[in-house]
């Protein structure tokens, strides 16, 4: 009888072990040489801070192509430098090269004193203050919001509550319809006892969430990935790239307990955002009040936020100008994949430029953003609320789903 292992012999196995050791030794040498794993290197300037939050404006890399500034709202889980993981794989740098004026919120690392922060605090407090800071900094009446993952959900909620301040809404791989069971996280979260979790920890350690993420593909993420790493261990640049991603994956801030409690209960378990029953403070979130142009980007092979959780969003908003964009790839590949570098930022930039406001709305907008070393950091105070005109939707456009 033939057998599948007839060509594997002891000599080959010993050779494998020898090669394996050589790679490890060489890799260990390189690892000890690496003193800094640099991430988030695009030059930027701190323009506002409040509690743990910091708001940055990136230094312009090209003439401004769009009058309305873009505020990136990242998820509370993991760190926003994934968008600028390394110079040649930087979603942020790609946007800057296309002339966008980009701001980003860095939520920081919550400590036990932040356990009582709620979704209302994050959305109607922090995001609103950042929007005000951006409006003042860019001298622009409105802001384009770009929310990533959970940040996309937050951005949509904010846009529904404060549509007058938002010119365009872009969401990337963000969940809205939590009724789906396509993703394991959605499946597991429906029955989890978030009260027990939050009551036990206050600020829920990032590691607990990370364990959940690793469970999504345990054999690939816990074993195979590190076996594959051996193949890049002898190449310093490739090893650094690996380490940058590794750093990002395990750089997980804790989650403010009350915010997490509401997010899990109201969104994952109650699906209240879609049902129009989500309450923030005294206000109920009505997605129908989102009337500005929206660009909804989802990843076809997203195992964290499945397309089924994202796609229904466009049917729930009041906007007439809405675009659904499918990216062929996974949740992280949207930002760091090699195809993404060529495809995504240009598509977003083009979409934004087409919807840029005419000059009168801008208030003496600078041609390029100030240099990173320029001054004015507003600290921990609220911005004066600039009166903004209500959103006036442009002429209707056909919903499209570009595919690469």
């Amino acid at each position: 009888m033939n057998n599948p292992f007839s060509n594997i012999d002891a000599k080959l196995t010993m050779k494998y072990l020898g090669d394996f050791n050589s790679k490890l030794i060489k890799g260990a040498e390189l690892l000890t040489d690496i003193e800094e794993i640099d991430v988030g290197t695009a030059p930027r300037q701190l323009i506002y801070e409040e509690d743990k939050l910091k708001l940055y404006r990136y230094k312009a890399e090209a003439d401004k192509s769009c009058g309305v500034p873009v505020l990136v709202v990242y998820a509370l889980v993991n760190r926003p430098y994934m968008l600028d993981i390394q110079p040649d794989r930087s979603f942020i740098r790609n946007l800057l090269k296309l002339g966008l004026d980009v701001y980003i919120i860095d939520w920081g690392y919550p400590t036990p004193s932040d356990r009582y922060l709620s979704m209302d605090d994050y959305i109607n407090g922090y995001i609103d203050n950042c929007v005000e800071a951006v409006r003042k900094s860019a001298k622009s009446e409105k802001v384009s919001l770009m929310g990533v993952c959970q940040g996309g959900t937050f951005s949509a909620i904010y846009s529904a509550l404060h549509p007058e301040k938002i010119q365009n809404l872009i969401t990337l791989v963000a969940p809205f319809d939590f009724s789906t069971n396509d993703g394991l996280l959605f499946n597991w979260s429906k029955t989890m006892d978030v009260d027990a979790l939050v009551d036990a920890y206050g600020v829920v350690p990032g590691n607990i969430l990370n364990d959940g993420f690793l469970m999504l593909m345990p054999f690939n993420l816990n074993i195979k990935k590190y076996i594959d790493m051996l193949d890049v261990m002898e190449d310093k640049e490739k090893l650094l790239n690996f380490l940058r991603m590794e750093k990002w994956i395990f750089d997980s801030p804790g989650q403010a307990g009350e915010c997490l409690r509401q997010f899990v209960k109201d969104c994952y378990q109650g699906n209240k955002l879609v049902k129009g029953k989500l309450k923030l403070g005294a206000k109920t979130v009505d997605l129908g009040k989102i009337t500005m142009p929206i660009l909804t980007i989802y990843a076809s092979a997203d195992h964290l936020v499945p397309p089924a959780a994202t796609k229904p969003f466009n049917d729930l908003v009041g906007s007439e100008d809405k675009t659904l964009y499918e990216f062929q790839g996974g949740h992280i590949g949207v930002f760091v994949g090699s195809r993404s570098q060529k495809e995504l930022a240009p598509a977003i930039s083009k979409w934004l430029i087409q919807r840029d406001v005419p000059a009168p709305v801008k208030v003496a907008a600078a041609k390029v953003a100030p240099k990173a070393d320029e001054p004015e950091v507003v600290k921990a105070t609220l911005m004066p609320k600039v009166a903004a005109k209500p959103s006036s939707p442009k002429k209707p456009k056909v919903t499209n789903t570009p595919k690469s």
Partner: protein
Amino acid sequence: MENPSDYIESWMKTQQQAINSLKDQAAQMQSFFMNTSGATDNPFTNWTKSAFQAFPMGVDATLAKDTFSKTLYGNDAMQKLYELWQPMLDAIRNKSIDPNNYADLADPAKMKALVEKLFNFDIGAMSQLQEQTAKYADVYQQFGKPWTDAWINAAKSQSSNFMQGNFAQNDFQPETLIKQMQAAYAIFESTTGKVFSAPAVGKDREKMELISKCAKAMSSFAANNIEYQQLMQVTGQEAMQAVIKTLAEKVEAGEKFEKFDEFFALWIDVNEKTFNKLFQTKEFSKKRNAMTEAGFNARKLYNEIIENQLADLPIARRSEMDEVYKLVYDLRKQVKSMEFQIKELKTSASKTKE
């Protein structure tokens, strides 16, 4: 050479030296690559230790070290995988066997060790928690100590049986063990366990009640945790069977593996799919959530016990800090709201002046 006999003697000596030298080399190689049980992890263990010791502590040394550790962890898992399948590979090489009997050659205990390593099953932490609680129980509930000890010993013995002994048997039936655990737990609940639900008396009544509650929560966690682990182990076995089936199909199709890596890729793929199928089930969600919920509850009660212990010391306790955090949170909101109002008033005042 003076005569033929000298030549032959010399030649034989040389040959003997060569053979001795080969034997020595083989022995050295063997001692280097094989430990006493025939596994091949010795050089890795030793090398890992020395590599870790050699690591400097730089800016990102922790991450580098951590990543390196995970690489070794992954490779260690691969080693374990190789050990697990090695008897089968040997058997296949040495003689033709019936693919349906491959399963007899794989050691379930090694498969179990792999699953445990992968999913971070750690009963050590639980045992430590139990022992610490027992110490408090000892302090505050002298009369209950024999029962507490009995319970802890029972839990330890069950855990030990499950984690080491029984599973390694080829005739092991996981369902039987779970039923055994459930029966033991039911007996505990209806006998000595009753003491934990009984109303306490005396000056330390509240503390004793808390300890009882915590002990009960921990026993609940232990039971749920074992059920969860059983589910994972059974799935691990299913995955092993699935790999065997795939191999058998390859045998019948006349396919061959050129490298162990190819088998490794197949193993990863089959396991990932088998576990993913489990993860999609309601049973998994239910058992995992029951386990984590019980763990969180036990932790919460344990924290309360610690707080009780620290009550007489001049340090801020968790619940007191939580009160401070709440106060700070409320004050921050008030201050922000007032700052905003002041700013609005100033703006409207300046507009009025103009």
